[in-house]
């Protein structure tokens, strides 16, 4: 008979979990493994609320195992290190992001692309090598192999830095991989949520001109005055959209709803690149002529490897970039999830786990 969550592992743990497709979260007692020779134990201070947490809690992608403890934008303090661990010391601030293990030996892992390894183990709702399910950051502590722990650089705020571990790396990685970092070039950011607002900040830090492309006109003032975007395009305004055709070198498309690609591709100039990081439920329509006649490309990207995530954290610390957050208490999580469905947040909820769990 399968062990109950509380008895699976030797250390008692506590968090909030969803138990069914309603996605409603509630207090949950479970357990975690002992801190092994290569492990780091992290007392969790903050955890960002990613839209993926919501999708997973409600089983919208179809592969949720209940009960599920979400949360993969984890920041906390080291309380224990294994005998093989030299990179981290007790008391240090660290982060844990979307992945907690991979096969470590395949060609992909050897290129520091653990996020593309076919055997990636995700921070929650994933099967560890010992076949037990992983539980995420809406909890009091987590035990992670040192290889998958990130050092939190000095100067990076712990609360506003938490969303960097998913939202941040999800846009930083493709901007580097697809070469979207040449100063002076023009970046379009489609969608202004957790991912989008990070793309604006990173784009400005790379020296790009940034235009936000959004269906919500009311977001314009903040986009420009608070986030530093240079301009703002409303997708339903066909004349200003048309006037902007052929003006962008790059577009990061963070929109998670189904949307037309054709107008975005038209915004690109020759040799322009559109990267999609949102995950709409249905396929998108890809117009071919525009790609062929302008040598344009549409690419995808999925979070980032550990080495690159560390590089991104260091870059953000250096450029004083962190997320714009709304700090909430653990017991407010269900209300926050309802607001997240309506995109009613500027621009990421972060749970004050340390003070409210």
């Amino acid at each position, binding site marked *: 008979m399968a062990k109950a969550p509380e008895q699976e592992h030797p250390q008692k743990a506590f968090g909030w979990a969803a138990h069914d497709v309603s996605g409603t979260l509630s207090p949950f007692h479970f357990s975690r493994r002992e801190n092994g020779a290569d492990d780091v134990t992290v007392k969790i201070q903050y955890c960002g609320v990613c839209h993926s947490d919501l999708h997973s809690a409600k089983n919208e992608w179809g592969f949720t195992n209940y009960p599920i403890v979400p949360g993969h934008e984890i920041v906390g303090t080291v309380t224990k290190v294994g005998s093989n661990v030299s990179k981290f010391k007790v008391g240090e601030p660290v982060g844990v992001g979307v992945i907690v293990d991979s096969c470590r030996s395949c060609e992909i892992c050897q290129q520091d692309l653990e996020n593309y390894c076919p055997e990636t183990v995700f921070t929650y709702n994933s099967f560890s090598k010992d076949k037990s399910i992983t539980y995420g950051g809406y909890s009091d502590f987590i035990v992670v192999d040192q290889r998958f722990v990130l050092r939190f650089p000095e100067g990076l705020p712990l609360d506003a830095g938490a969303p960097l571990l998913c939202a941040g790396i999800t846009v930083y990685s493709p901007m580097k*991989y697809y070469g979207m970092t040449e100063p002076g070039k023009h970046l379009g950011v489609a969608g202004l949520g957790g991912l989008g607002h990070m793309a604006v900040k990173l784009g400005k830090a790379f020296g790009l001109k940034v235009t936000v492309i959004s269906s919500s006109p009311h977001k314009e003032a903040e986009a420009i005055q608070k986030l530093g975007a240079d301009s703002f395009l409303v997708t339903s305004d066909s004349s200003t959209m048309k006037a902007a055709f052929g003006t962008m070198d790059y577009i990061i498309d963070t929109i998670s709803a189904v949307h037309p690609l054709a107008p975005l591709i038209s915004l690109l100039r020759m040799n322009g690149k559109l990267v999609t990081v949102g995950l709409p439920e249905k396929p*998108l*329509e*890809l117009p071919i002529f525009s*790609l*062929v006649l*302008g*040598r344009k490309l*549409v690419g995808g*990207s999925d979070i980032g490897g550990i080495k690159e995530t560390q590089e991104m954290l260091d870059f953000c610390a250096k450029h004083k970039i962190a997320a714009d957050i709304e700090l909430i208490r653990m017991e407010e999580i269900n209300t926050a999830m309802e607001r997240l469905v309506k995109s009613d947040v500027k621009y990421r909820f972060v749970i004050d786990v340390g003070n409210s769990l």
Partner: protein
Amino acid sequence: MAKSMDQQHPVKAFGWAARDSSGHLSPYNFSRRSTGENDVAFKVLYCGVCHSDLHSIKNEWGGSTYPMVPGHEMVGVVTEVGSKVTKFNVGDRVGVGCMVWSCRSCDSCSSDLENYCLGMILTYNAKYHDGTITYGGYSNLMVADEHFIVSIPDNLPLERAGPLLCAGITVYSPLRYYGLDKPGLHVAVVGLGGLGHMAVKFAKAMGLKVTVISTSPNKKQEAIERLGADSFLVSRDQEQLRSAIGTMDGIIDTVSAAHHLPPLLGLLKTNGKLIVVGAPEKPFELPAFQLIYGRKLVGGSGIGGMKETQEMIDFASKHNITSEVEVIRMDYINTAMERLAKADVKYRFVIDIGNSLQTTE
């Protein structure tokens, strides 16, 4: 009295033109400009028959103007050069591909990407900057600005070199631009027609492993024995496709008929690239997760700039790469077009203009 469109220029020329969207071609007297100071005039000896010619004469893309003299894979011998021409002499073997003009000053032109210039003018069925219509290579002579003339090295037989000017550059350019030109990479070529067979030859010459993916099992033997492909997959065979999942660094998709992307995307490794060079009419359905899980991309490419076209010709010369052709007489062209519509050609028709185009005057 205003001159009729076909007599606007001083030099008599002769070719075959389509008169309407039936696409039926027949003899046509027209005229070309005299050789300007930057121009090169040449006697056309051969012209490849590109599928674009068929689309254009039947107005399948809209925008066709009649009478239309198609042909943008033409080669021949120089008969006259303008006073400011430096790169060519009378007697040189030359060719003209898909373009005859560009603005020469925009960012694209300055980067040797005249094909992406917004003012680029196509070799036929386009309005030239002097207001006249351009006429292509199904004709006895051609006049073009030196910048758009390509030199054909002596070791490339003229009757097999023409298709390089469109089919060749169309696949060569993306192999280079998207980095699918490194020895040891594994590339799939989807569709084995004019573009596809050239892609196989170039990719093999670049040291790649090549798999041909086709709907026609009967093309397998030739693909491997004649063109040098390493393997062959029948696209309708689910088992074969499944066995190739995650094995390709790149895919060159030359298919112009409607088809599905998801099975092809599944064949790519992480960081794999699917490059579309065919031009299906309808948009593709693209499941975003297929690009995201594996950091894959779908990119397009259209012909190439003049510098790269010459580079491609020189590469072909070095590696003895030419097109596999079926040489036809001018008066066979309508039958050839019917066969082309059924993909019944291995792998490019080439019109023997020099020996079979006869003026009726």
